[in-house]
């Protein structure tokens, strides 16, 4: 089967800075792929290269099996000839055109079928009454919907979304990503979306491509990336984790909050152990066995779905206490100073080679 979009050995520089380093990636028809990474990792550039908005410097871009850009042969199809829909971070709605004129901007002829499709979707989004208003009067969510419909209206072979929800507040973002996902799947469009929000990528994508400093770090499904991150970088994209760097001894790693299997790391190697807060579960007295470790609560916070507890190890031999985070579902708020026993779930423990980089907080 021909892929909808294919990058082959893409490299890109802005001045002296390498933004993309030898990227190759294929996206299948109808697939929803997220490019996930921190700002400056090159994900937006990759997106713009697919649209033809950035001049390709090295490599080949194919759309639906045909060459859209080939740097070596100086081929670069103009963006207007690529049949690609793109939704911009700032939505880029034309302020001088009405909502309807914006959405129909990309339709060559007044194609009644497409117009009916648009009207249907406007109704689905509950914004039919806005068709003749100007974008300046719309709320963020409404603008987002209009921008999405405008990108989808010409029936593009590929839909590109550049941080589509970043301009919305958190509550609206969650609502919009459900709506957006549903509409895109119904339209059957192949989609490549850029985001820096791991949770968002997990929610929307069939496949997540994690990028770091111009390289692809790992590709996989949400479940796959969450449960088997290949590096500390990938693990850290999906929430803050407890991190302890130690040396492997007897195929185990000893950390202030427990001793764990070294998961195949070499003897004597410096490693960092990642433990997600949800892997550290405070136990009630009935649940706890005698041998469960104990720590002192420093503060606890109820976050709705779960409670987040900050804890401190109790006077180990070295004397210095180490703080760490734990989580328990529901409302669980032990007072600061109380001692609780806890259990660490090995499923949430990851061991990576210590690459010397400090985890950014």
């Amino acid at each position, binding site marked *: 089967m021909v892929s909808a979009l294919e990058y082959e050995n893409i490299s890109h520089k802005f001045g002296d800075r390498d933004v993309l380093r030898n990227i190759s990636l294929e996206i299948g028809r109808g697939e929803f792929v997220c490019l996930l990474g921190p700002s400056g990792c090159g994900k937006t550039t990759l997106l713009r290269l697919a649209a033809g908005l950035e001049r390709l410097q090295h490599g080949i871009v194919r759309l639906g099996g045909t060459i859209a850009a080939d740097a070596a042969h100086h081929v*670069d199809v103009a963006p*207007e000839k690529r049949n690609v829909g793109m939704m911009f971070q700032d939505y880029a709605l*034309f302020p001088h055109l009405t909502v309807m004129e914006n959405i129909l901007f990309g339709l060559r002829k007044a194609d009644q079928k497409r117009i009916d499709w648009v009207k249907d979707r406007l109704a689905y989004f509950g914004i039919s009454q806005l068709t003749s208003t100007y974008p300046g009067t719309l709320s963020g969510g409404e603008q987002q919907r209009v921008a999405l419909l405008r990108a989808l209206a010409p029936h593009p072979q590929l839909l590109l979304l550049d941080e589509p929800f970043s301009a919305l507040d958190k509550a609206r973002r969650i609502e919009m990503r459900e709506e957006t996902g549903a509409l895109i799947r119904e339209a059957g469009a192949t989609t490549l979306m850029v985001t820096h929000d791991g949770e968002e990528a997990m929610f929307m994508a069939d496949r997540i491509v994690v990028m770091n400093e111009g390289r692809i770090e790992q590709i996989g499904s949400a479940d796959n990336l969450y449960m088997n991150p290949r590096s500390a970088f990938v693990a850290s994209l999906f929430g803050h984790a407890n991190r302890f760097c130690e040396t492997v001894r007897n195929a185990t790693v000893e950390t202030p909050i427990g001793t764990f299997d070294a998961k195949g790391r070499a003897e004597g190697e410096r490693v960092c152990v990642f433990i997600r807060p949800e892997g550290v579960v405070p136990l009630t007295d009935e649940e706890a066995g005698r041998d469960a470790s104990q720590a002192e609560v420093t503060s606890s916070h109820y976050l709705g779905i779960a409670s987040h507890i900050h804890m401190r190890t109790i006077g180990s031999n070295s004397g210095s206490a180490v703080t760490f985070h734990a989580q328990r579902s529901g409302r669980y708020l032990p007072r600061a100073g109380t001692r609780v026993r806890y259990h660490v779930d090995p499923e949430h423990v990851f061991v990576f080679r210590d690459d010397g980089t400090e985890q950014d907080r």
Partner: protein
Amino acid sequence: MTRAFDGWSLTALIVAALVALPLLSVFGLALSGSGDVWAHLVSTVLGNYIRTSLLLMLGVGVGVAVIGAGTAWLTSACRFPGVRVFEWALLLPLAVPAYIVAYIYTDILEFAGPVQGAMRDLMGWKTARDYWFPEIRSLEGAIAVMVLTLYPYVYLLARSSFLEQTATLLDAGRVLGNGPWRNFFRVALPLARPAIVVGVSLALMETLNDFGTVDFFAVQTFTAGIYDVWLNMNSMAGAAQLATVLLLFVFMLITAERLARRGRRFDMKAGRKKTHVHDLKGWLAVAAILACLLPVLFGFLLPMSVLFSHAMVFYEDSLNSGFWRHAGHSLLVSSLVALVSTVLGLVLGYGARLSGSVLTRYASRVASIGYAVPGSVLAVGIMLPLTQFDRSLNIFSTRLFDLPLGLVLSGTVFALVYGYSARFMALSLGSVESGLARITPSMDGAARTLGANRSETLRRVHLPLLRRFLLTAILIVFVDSMKELPITMLLRPFNFDTLATYTHQFARNELFEEAALGALAIVAAGILPVILLSRTITGGDR
């Protein structure tokens, strides 16, 4: 975006080259010119030109800085009766070209004028020997006239800088023990200094460009000298040599302006805007009112009332067929220039946006240097290539078809339009660029991915969004063309007068009263952009 080099950037480069051509030909002519003209100039007039120009710049610079910054501070940080009116009224003198103010004050203040006449009647004096009265037609007079008409440049920029300053900074100054005066000199003024320097540089560029005032007052500046050497000594090479020296002055001003603009970065945007105003009471309020009233009175109200009364009295004499012919010329040339430079400004601006290459970005910088180059220099630089083109064309056509074509480009309206457009390109380009800067690049991306090519994107997205900026460009270029004097004096076709040259001619012949209607028409046109400016100044701030 797909090809590095395309029609858009090529056109942008050609436009830039056309603006640069006059400057290059001035340099070329100056270098090739015979040494004896230069030696003659050095031994006779050059020293005087340099001294006079420098004194003029010094006087005007200090004057516009004090009046401009002072009134800007009063209207932005103080409250006193009438301040809301002064906010925009202080801009009014911008509408009156310096040369017209010069004619008017000469008219009022000369020996036969009403002021000296009244003084003689009152005191019983008979002749000029009986009393002392300042001579308006002097260097000091020229300084006064130019300060009165050019201080709004500083006022505008200093005012927006004062308004940008955050209240917290000034409050911090007060808490740290500064009184209001000390706070002004130690906090507000240093923060506004870059803006003031930019305003003064712009005013001084206009000073160097001025021909009408210095010619009328017989003040020997470079501009007057270029005109004299070219038309009276009949030496274009000499004129070009003077022009080159003048360009050194201009270069200093551009450098000062650029450095100051770079320095403007320390103007802070964040923080609470000024809500705190000094309430002026009693004598202080009276002083503030006077400080704001006098520039408006002498820069606008008084000259306008004189113009009106002359225009009323000499209505019949002035409103003859000549007036309409000159007005027609002015309208024709100004409209052509407004259209040409706006279209070219759009091509340059959009070309630079599309390619983003260093070359096209330089092209638009080069194309905007015209605003700094005095009209007389541009005229010298344009005359030469156009005459040579015409000469070759005539040789060619005579040989081939035995048909001398005469003047095709030089000495025609084309030369005028070329000269004006080269000078005012910066205005239209600046307007287009500030309009384009408000359109986020993702708009282009959106239009392109939705299937619109470059020209279609320009037509369907940029043009509608730029409409207000294009109209502004057309308006300000039109008005500046209506006022233009030095280029017109040197490049106009034989027997071709505009309102400006005809007013100047009449004033030189001491028949200014009869040309008052023409002057009034120029000022009336000049009021339009001032209204536009005053609306942004009062609307945008609060």
